[in-house]
């Protein structure tokens, strides 16, 4: 194998340094690169400095997540689900589907509304989704969850005929 050209001095080989640090080089390339490093002060210095950088970055841990994060998220989801469907469709068009740098022009937005209207007319009704569930999956976590919910409802005395208002 040809001797490695120093990645510090040869920008075309710069990625090799990163690949070496990431342990992505194959075995023979690693051997050759380490052979190069043993005689290259610049690479040795760079590698040592990079390890220090990673140690420094390791020292930075974010704080804990707020306890009410999930609650706030589900409140927002709940609020959204109570909005009319066309509001949600419009929001989907202007946010989730669009790249961050793209600002839809009015004519394009209008065309999208017509497409959405056509989609809503043609979309399968919600009851069809239930009928289409044909798999018989034994889902461990869902079974556990259901057992837990049964216990919860029983513990809270919700096993009368009154049910729960939704």
């Amino acid at each position, binding site marked *: 194998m040809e001797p490695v050209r120093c990645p510090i001095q040869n920008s075309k080989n710069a990625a090799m340094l990163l690949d070496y640090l990431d342990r992505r080089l194959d075995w023979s390339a690693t051997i050759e690169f380490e052979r190069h490093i043993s005689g290259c002060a610049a690479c040795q210095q760079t590698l040592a400095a990079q390890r220090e950088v990673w140690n420094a970055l390791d020292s930075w841990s974010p704080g804990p997540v707020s306890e009410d994060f999930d609650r706030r998220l589900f409140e927002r989801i709940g609020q959204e689900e109570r909005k009319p469907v066309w509001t949600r469709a419009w929001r989907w068009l202007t946010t989730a589907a669009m790249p961050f740098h793209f600002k839809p022009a009015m004519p394009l*937005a209008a065309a999208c509304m017509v497409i959405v209207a056509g989609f809503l007319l043609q979309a399968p009704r919600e009851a069809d989704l239930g009928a289409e569930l044909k798999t018989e999956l034994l889902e*461990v976590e869902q079974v556990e969850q259901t*057992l837990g919910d049964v*216990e919860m409802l029983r513990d809270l005395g*919700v096993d009368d005929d009154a049910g729960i208002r939704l």
Partner: protein
Amino acid sequence: MPGSGFLVLLALSGALAAPAGAQRPGAPFRSPKLIQKGPIARKQLDRIERMTPAERKRFLDGLPEARRREAERRFEQFDRMSAEQKGRLAKGIEQLENMPVDKRLRLRRLYRDFNAIPADRRSVLRGELQSLRKLEPEARAERMNSDEFRNKYSATEQRLLGGLSEVLDPDER
């Protein structure tokens, strides 16, 4: 002018689009159910009911120790229920699945706090909760503001009873 053309298209799409869960005029607002949840919940309950001993053993054997003990205990609890009780709980499970997600999350958190209370107090709270659920909201508020109620229950217990009775407000009284 692009603006007026857009407004025409908007009006047209609004007129043509069939909103999911169309409302009857004058009917109380019900959150449109974009997601069919009932069959999934019922499916799981039916599956638990129909599990053969071998299936149940395979299920339990695959769980880590703590989860296996918990699941085993709950299976035994489930087995002890009458058919009638199971039927009523099945209805509750379906309604739980159809709850708005924020409400369901709130219920789970209240239940977690409920479980932190000593067992003897839990049975007292359970009885009180059942009574509160039978009351109309105004009567319930009156009961909870009474001296007797406040003297009987700690601040935490009052909070739990208030939250649970609100979340589990019955469909029928």
